[in-house]
């Protein structure tokens, strides 16, 4: 093995340790954050007994979950019952490997580590565990694998509630996967690449994609909520209807794994939103492209800030909106988001053709600004139509239901 190869492996292992430690600890802290945010929104204080301001609460929960009894229902399929939490957990963690979290760090070293021999690495080190060329396709593929865990958990529990939860998760995932995939096609159209690195570079050159591709962002965000089974789309759990949905029969650490998977999925979706539509680790301006340790740290911190904002946003939505009814959920996915996404692809295709070939603008900044202009019009149209109830009907339908079934006898005199 050459020293370069060994250096690459060494750095990759270090990055892996870093990312997975951050994700696992972060996920634990997110459970605390969720409880704190929910408490604040309800004028409460939230957990504040264990450790300073409740910071050790996740550790207490973890200890509790490890020490609790592992139950398993009679006639459950034991094999799949044990396998399901892992199937939910592993894809959720795998996704954190492909998100670039900081600007590439220029590394240049040549060291000998005792009996392991020489290690070397020269050039910029991408701050991502696996710099995959297939980028967000990998995320789409793996994130939809998470539903196997949920569906199998529901099926193997031998419980009607769990089964219904699993079925709902499957149907929901299939419905929203379509809109999610379609919403990412405009990103592909203007960046010309699916890799996260290339997408971030294109956003650095032009504008953050949220401006030229606002509707994509909007659809992606909504589908993301549905993909992570968070409120207002938490029908697989739906505690008021299905007890706890797919994890009704789980206890102790197996139950905990589902929670870790859910939060890890939230982190991933938020990281995707940040990377695809908010420039990833990009700090506006040229400064962050110079490359250096300081730049890497600053961009990492900035990425973290954006990520935290979106995680907060997810929690904010969760504690604001009630759960959708199941037919509303399906109608929103198939009848609203998918047609809008398809139409939007056509609009963006036309706009890009017009801008690049008819108007002949090739400068990424100008192109983005022109697309932004198109988007302002599109956004006004779509939100105007949404608000007037053309796409989505509100629940206020008393005019129709109040129609008397039997023609009332006319009272005279």
């Amino acid at each position, binding site marked *: 093995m050459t020293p370069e190869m060994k250096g690459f492996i060494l750095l990759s292992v270090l990055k892996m340790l870093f990312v997975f430690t951050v994700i696992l600890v972060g996920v634990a802290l997110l459970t605390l954050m969720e409880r704190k945010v929910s408490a604040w929104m309800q004028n409460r204080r939230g957990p504040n007994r264990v450790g300073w301001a409740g910071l050790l609460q996740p550790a207490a929960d973890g200890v509790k979950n490890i020490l609790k009894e592992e139950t398993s229902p009679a006639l459950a399929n034991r094999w799949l019952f044990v396998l399901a939490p892992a199937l939910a957990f592993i894809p959720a963690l795998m996704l954190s490997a492909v998100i670039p979290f900081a600007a590439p760090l220029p590394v240049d070293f040549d060291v000998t580590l005792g009996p392991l021999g020489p290690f070397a690495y020269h050039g910029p080190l991408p701050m991502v565990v696996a710099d995959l060329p297939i980028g967000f396709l990998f995320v789409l593929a793996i994130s939809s694998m998470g539903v196997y865990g949920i569906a199998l958990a529901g099926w193997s529990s031998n419980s009607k509630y769990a089964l219904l939860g699993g079925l709902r998760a499957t149907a929901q995932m299939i419905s929203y996967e379509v809109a999610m995939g379609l919403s990412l096609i405009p990103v592909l159209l203007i960046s010309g690449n699916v890799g996260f690195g290339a997408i971030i570079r294109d956003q650095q050159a032009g504008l953050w994609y949220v401006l030229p591709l606002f509707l994509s962002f909007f659809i992606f965000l909504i589908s993301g909520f549905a993909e992570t089974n968070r409120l207002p789309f938490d029908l697989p759990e739906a505690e008021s209807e299905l007890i706890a949905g797919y994890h009704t029969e789980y206890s102790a650490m197996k139950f905990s794994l589902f929670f870790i998977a859910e939060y890890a999925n939230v982190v991933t979706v938020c990281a995707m939103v940040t990377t695809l539509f908010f420039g990833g680790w990009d700090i506006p301006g040229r400064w962050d492209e110079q490359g250096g340790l300081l730049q890497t740290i600053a961009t990492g911190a900035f990425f973290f800030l954006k990520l935290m904002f979106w995680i907060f946003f997810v929690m904010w939505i969760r504690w604001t909106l009630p759960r959708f009814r199941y037919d509303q959920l399906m109608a929103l996915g198939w009848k609203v988001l998918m047609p809008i996404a398809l139409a939007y692809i056509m609009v963006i295709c036309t706009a890009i053709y017009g801008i690049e070939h008819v108007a002949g603008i090739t400068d990424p900044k100008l192109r983005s600004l022109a697309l932004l202009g198109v988007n302002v019009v599109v956004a006004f149209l779509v939100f105007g139509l949404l608000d*007037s*109830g053309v796409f989505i009907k509100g629940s206020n339908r008393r005019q129709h239901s109040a129609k008397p079934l039997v023609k009332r006898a006319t009272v005279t005199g």
Partner: protein
Amino acid sequence: MAIGVKVMRRPEREVSYVRATLKGMALTFKHMFEPKVTMQYPEQKSTTEWSISQRWRGTHRMLTDEQGRSKCVACGLCPQICPANCIKLVPGEDEQGNRYPLIYEIDEFRCVFCGYCQEVCPEEAIHVGVHFENAEYTRGRFVYDLERLQSQTHAVSTLWDPSDPQGE
């Protein structure tokens, strides 16, 4: 006088939930910065807005006279009126012919905290108390004997509001 009818402003045409969502989000965000209503219970047992009612009927107290003896004359009215049959009273009599309780036990698990014992007591001896922290390690500890009832120090219930005796 005409009856005041609140007329709800219903939307005249069908509207979606987009606006309502934004409104709700603004509301929850606003709530994050409002003062917290949580009472930090073990440290803080009452706030300016909330304190336990003086009419609260909790675990009992037996009041004592100046010599430290219980005021109870073992008349037997409280076990008679008790709907839960939780008071055990064995009367005794001393050389002067004064009646006193030999055994006076209240099973706080059986008690329904109706406060009839306090109402019926002619000597104002037995009272229900303004007290709610009753944790014990064994069930047996919930049978309060006379000594225990006398050694309690919490406030006694007023049963009714002195400023509003008719309950109006």
